[in-house]
């Protein structure tokens, strides 16, 4: 398996890599490979590889890059002593944050076993809005857990997606889709990558996508171009909402007095207003059909409206003309987009002869599809209004009747899951106890205010303030605030911060220059404010310079890995798929896979999961752990779903199989469980599928997962903020914030930072995209890939640039209210005039990644992060919120406003800011001045 998820074949000659190509039998990529995968050779043999455990030299200041080699034994004893002390006193003083989110099942488990709540992967600064916005609405989301069914779609609308998430599978599907005559519309401020081949490009202002969706929803409702049958049966559109403003249940669905079963979806006890009898009835009662529109009064006089009526009321003000002013898209185009979606969904229906039974027992002879598919990613997510925007998108997809249907959005196992999924964090600070695992998951999905991880006063328990009243639904944590909070000691100080594969001193952090200062800042006693920093990475990243201890990780060719069902598997629409990585090369130098480090540490710290009753080692190593660990003793559920049972005869559940790795290796490293056709669609309400999923331990419940057109979860928070609920209530200073943003129906608001910016002074939005040929910051050390992206320009609409007196190629300043960077301008006709953009993570610190200090990356390349803040401007009372979505804590990378102007004559032709060049560490190779790679030549002979 390649560095991400594709299947590859590594061909060796005399122990060296001859070439790497795609595995044609792999379900994900079917033999294709990307530019990064094809350059794997240069990654494997890169001079930026770290090869030895390193300790900051005694007396050397942190950040100066002075290290000395130590042995692994010393490393482990130093770490277990330090961490052991923390665990015995206050486990939350240890924080583990990882850039890699595909290892969460293990890293999260380690943190939980340790007993610290301070754990998260990079989702908080990546796309948690996408995950949360969709999961809280339709029970699944884009990317690993679902996607557009381009095989059968006729119209494909891509919005806020650059060139990643899904990489190869998206390219494969997009190409087939276009060749088969599908219509592809791309809505994006910038036209590159996938958007380049769109049949139509609709430029939009960043952060205004929500306004567009709401206007389209309005137009669809106005013309009746929605799928009423779908809304009635499969969503909460017809459910009656209590509109008695004085009532404690205001804004909640009215229910009959049947006790609730915990965690399940309780739709069966909610009410419709039946069209036939003109009376309230229990939803989905035989022979009834609800009004979706109207206004009714219950017998007790309670005024109620169906949720759909409330949506219609909500969007009434969102006319296309209004949206034109916000988005920059002409109203006629907005109308046409709505018409294209509505008419394609209505007139190009697909009927597949697949019989299935829904959760209310109704048998269906066919599966229907309305072939309009969407895909969206960070362009929507990385704004502080992203959650509500993505709710709006999910609702638009729902109105068109496209959820888990052919040609629309399709789930991938383990999704769909209940709304919200069952995992919960603890909700009490007492869950953190010395020498005790955390009582709950470090990350989860709050269903109401009682699920928040706060103390009695409503203060956060987590370092990053996740799951607090500030960012209640922060399902992926807020890694982007971990360093700032730890430095400030707000909510508290920590002792040890362990960062895995996250370049938090450069491109993975906002406010890079300041964060670098925080990492070396000392308190009045001369001690570092963040006392101990451990960094695990395979390469000489900018962050390693700030480490007190560096753990050299292996590359993906030197390690075992799993893409587990417990984590983010590589499932397909037709059923669960998980996969493994097996090493093809021995580790370089003394590199050790991070998983092995965790298991060793866990064993030394005697964390219950890693030792037996007598405190003896339970797992020899990571492969052994993967085979033998079970979610609970005898549960039969482990990291891998394939070839379980003693002889490998079982799938999904079964006893550990000692030969599981071999069986995966023999089968392309993939286990693919193809579901019966009748389980492949409509899974939110598919009795057969849901029961299968429950039997196999994928989901706890088999109740229907009704789409939350109207979100009671959000309303519960709003009621709490209004002081109405029986749940916990937010501290006073946060009540207004929670009340405002926790709207049960999607609404549009200007991104928070934009609201707090002087838009006349900073007239432009600045955004970044990930280039297809670079794996974040990881590939600048790759001799081949860096020839494609040696440095980056700020792309400016040609007219915008001319108006500012800027010539193509000029050195300019790009300045926000937070700071400024000097960079080179490049004219473009493929960017909306109010937006400037650049490739992310191409600019590097001098000397980093073992590049020479004069390398283009650090001289002409620049990092936009310098002008983006991790916090919003202070509130009137001095408090500072994260520059994040107020609902999910998603980092609002793309909210920043800038101005651009020409650099003065005489300024150096060099990016600014500059930093002291990084040094080469012990164990790193000298970078050669030329290369002529010929794999396996030296020793002669054939393969």
């Amino acid at each position, binding site marked *: 398996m390649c560095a991400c998820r594709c299947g590859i074949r590594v061909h060796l000659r005399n122990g060296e890599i001859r070439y790497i190509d795609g595995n044609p039998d792999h379900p994900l990529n079917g033999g294709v490979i990307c530019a990064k995968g094809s350059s794997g050779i240069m990654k494997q043999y890169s001079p930026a590889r770290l090869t030895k455990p390193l300790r900051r030299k005694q007396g050397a200041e942190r950040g100066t890059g002075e290290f000395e080699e130590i042995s692994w034994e010393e490393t482990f004893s130093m770490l277990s002593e330090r961490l052991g002390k923390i665990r015995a006193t206050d486990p939350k003083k240890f924080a583990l944050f990882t850039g890699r989110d595909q290892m969460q099942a293990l890293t999260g488990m380690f943190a939980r076993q340790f007993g610290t709540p301070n754990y998260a992967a990079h989702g908080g600064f990546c796309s948690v809005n996408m995950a949360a916005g969709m999961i809280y609405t339709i029970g699944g989301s884009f990317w690993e857990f679902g996607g557009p069914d381009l095989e059968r779609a006729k119209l494909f609308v891509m919005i806020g997606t650059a060139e990643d998430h899904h990489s190869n599978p998206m390219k494969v599907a997009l190409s087939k889709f276009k060749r088969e005559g599908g219509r592809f519309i791309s809505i994006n401020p910038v036209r590159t990558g996938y958007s380049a081949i769109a049949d139509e490009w609709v430029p939009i202002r960043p952060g205004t996508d929500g306004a567009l969706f709401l206007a389209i929803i309005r137009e669809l409702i106005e013309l009746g171009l929605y799928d009423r049958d779908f809304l009635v049966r499969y969503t909460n559109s017809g459910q009656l909402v209590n509109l008695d403003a004085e009532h404690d249940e205001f804004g909640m669905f009215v229910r009959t007095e049947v006790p609730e079963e915990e965690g399940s979806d309780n739709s069966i006890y909610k009410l419709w207003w039946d069209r036939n009898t003109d009376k309230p009835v229990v939803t989905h009662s035989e022979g009834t059909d609800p009004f979706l529109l109207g206004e009714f009064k219950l017998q007790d006089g309670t005024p109620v409206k169906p949720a759909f009526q409330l949506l219609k009321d909500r969007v009434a003000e969102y006319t296309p003309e209004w949206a034109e002013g916000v988005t920059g898209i002409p109203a006629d185009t907005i109308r046409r987009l709505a018409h294209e979606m509505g008419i394609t969904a209505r007139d190009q229906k697909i009927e597949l002869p697949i019989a299935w039974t829904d959760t209310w027992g109704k048998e269906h002879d066919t599966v229907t599809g309305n072939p309009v598919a969407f895909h969206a990613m960070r362009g929507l997510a990385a704004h502080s209004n992203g959650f509500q925007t993505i709710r709006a998108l999910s609702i638009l997809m729902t109105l068109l009747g496209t959820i888990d249907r052919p040609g629309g959005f399709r789930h991938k196992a383990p999704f769909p899951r209940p709304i919200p999924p069952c995992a919960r964090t603890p909700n009490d600070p007492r869950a953190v106890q010395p020498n005790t695992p955390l009582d709950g998951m470090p990350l989860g999905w709050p269903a109401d205010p009682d699920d928040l991880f706060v103390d009695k006063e409503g203060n956060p328990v987590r370092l990053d303030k996740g799951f607090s009243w500030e960012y209640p639904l922060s399902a992926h944590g807020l890694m982007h605030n971990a360093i700032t909070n730890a430095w400030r000691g707000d909510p508290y100080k920590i002792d040890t911060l362990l960062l895995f594969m996250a370049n938090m001193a450069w491109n993975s952090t906002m406010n890079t220059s300041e964060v670098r200062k925080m990492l070396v800042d000392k308190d009045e006693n001369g001690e570092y404010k963040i006392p101990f920093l451990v960094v695990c990475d395979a390469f000489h990243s900018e962050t390693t310079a700030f480490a007190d201890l560096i753990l050299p990780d292996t590359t993906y060719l030197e390690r075992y890995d799993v893409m587990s069902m417990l984590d983010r598997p590589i499932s397909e629409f037709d059923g669960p798929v998980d996969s493994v990585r097996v090493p093809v090369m021995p580790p370089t130098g003394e590199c050790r896979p991070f998983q092995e480090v965790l298991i060793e540490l866990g064993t030394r710290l005697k964390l219950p999961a890693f030792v037996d009753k007598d405190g003896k080692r339970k797992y020899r190593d990571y492969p052994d752990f993967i085979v033998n660990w079970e979610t609970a003793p005898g549960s039969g559920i482990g990291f891998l779903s394939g070839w379980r049972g003693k002889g490998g005869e079982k799938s999904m559940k079964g006893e550990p199989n000692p030969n599981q790795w071999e069986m995966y290796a023999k089968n392309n490293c993939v286990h693919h469980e193809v579901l019966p056709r009748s389980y492949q669609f409509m899974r939110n309400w598919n009795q057969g599928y849901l029961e299968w999923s429950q039997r196999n331990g994928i989901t706890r419940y088999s109740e229907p997962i009704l789409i939350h057109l109207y979100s009671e979860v959000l309303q519960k928070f709003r009621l709490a903020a209004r002081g109405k609920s029986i749940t916990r209530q937010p501290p006073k200073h946060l009540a207004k914030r929670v009340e405002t943003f926790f709207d049960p129906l999607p609404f549009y608001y200007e991104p928070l930072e934009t609201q707090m910016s002087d838009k006349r002074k900073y007239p432009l939005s600045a955004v970044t995209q990930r280039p297809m040929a670079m794996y974040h910051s990881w590939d600048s050390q790759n001799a081949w890939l860096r020839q494609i992206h040696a440095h980056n320009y700020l792309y400016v609409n040609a007219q915008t640039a001319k108006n500012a007196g800027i010539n193509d190629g000029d050195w300019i300043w790009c300045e926000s209210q937070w700071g400024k960077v000097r960079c080179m301008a490049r004219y473009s006709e493929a960017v909306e005039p109010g937006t400037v953009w650049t490739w992310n993570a191409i600019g590097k610190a001098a000397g980093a990644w073992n590049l020479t200090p004069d390398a*283009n990356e650090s001289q002409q390349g620049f990092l936009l992060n310098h002008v983006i803040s991790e916090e919003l401007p202070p509130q009137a009372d001095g408090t500072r919120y994260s520059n994040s979505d107020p609902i999910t804590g998603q980092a609002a990378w793309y909210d920043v406003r800038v101005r651009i102007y020409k650099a003065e004559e005489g300024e150096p032709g060099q990016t600014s800011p500059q930093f002291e060049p990084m040094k080469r560490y012990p164990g790193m190779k000298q970078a050669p001045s030329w290369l002529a790679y010929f794999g396996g030549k030296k020793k002669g002979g054939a393969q």
Partner: protein
Amino acid sequence: MKPAFSVIFLTTLIGAAQGLFLALFTHQSYALFGLLPMQSDDFYGYGSAISFLLLCLGLFAAVFHLGKPSYMITRAWRGILQWRTSWMSRELIALPAFMGIVFLYGVAHLLTIRPEIVTLPGGQVVDLTLLLGVGGTVMAFVLFICTAMIYACLRFLREWHTPLTVINYILMGGSSGFILAALYASSSAPDEAGFFAGWAIIITLLAFISRVASLVRNARLKPKSTLQTAIGVKHPHIVQRSMGAMGGSFNTREYFHGRTAAFLRAVKPAFLLLAFVLPLLLLALDTPTLLGAAFILQYLGLLAERWFFFAQANHPQNLYYQTVG
């Protein structure tokens, strides 16, 4: 195109050598018919030695045009194999052939190996040197044509793809050679310097006219290839945003002169002045002591001319290599 200094020196040095040889043999031919006093064998002999020396220098410069100088020994012999199709192959044959004849012509004079071959009806005796001279003259022109055709045959390098390229090479080589001959004669046969100088004026004037004609022609050229034909898209507004390599490539090094447009504009009048106008003035002054200056100035001018010749040629491949991005 990026001017390659090996080629600039090669073509200018052998051009002067060819011109010098032609001048010497022109003199010998005039003398044969009694139009000029026959000079000593040494005059022709040492003269052709100078020509030979220049040819050797040219050849030496050419070595640096090979990928590695060692290829001269190990591989260059293969260069003669493709004479049916390749002008460069033909040049590789013509150059040594010409050098051989010049060598023999010089040796025949210096060692006075002048066996009679035939006597013309007018009584003029045709000996070996004359036969070699005629052969050398033919080869000099063949070599001029081969050298020039290397450039002129490339049809999409439109600045070069014209008969004027061949004419220019002949006339500029001739001009430089006749001036050198005049300079040579001014010391070894002062009476004859005028003859050479006179022809030099005529040839330099013709070269001037011909070179200006090619400049005028090139200024009027309309590119046949455009971004539209290069990528096959019909739209008046196309710009490249990325050439696909940010640190440069062979394509950005070999085909661009790497100087500013202003530099290019400045070189043009400079070489016209140095290679043509000043030598003509100096020749017209008819002062033997200035002939050296005329030759040296002109040679510098010709170096500049050749630099300009390459730099001005706009390769259609450049359409693909406009923007780092």
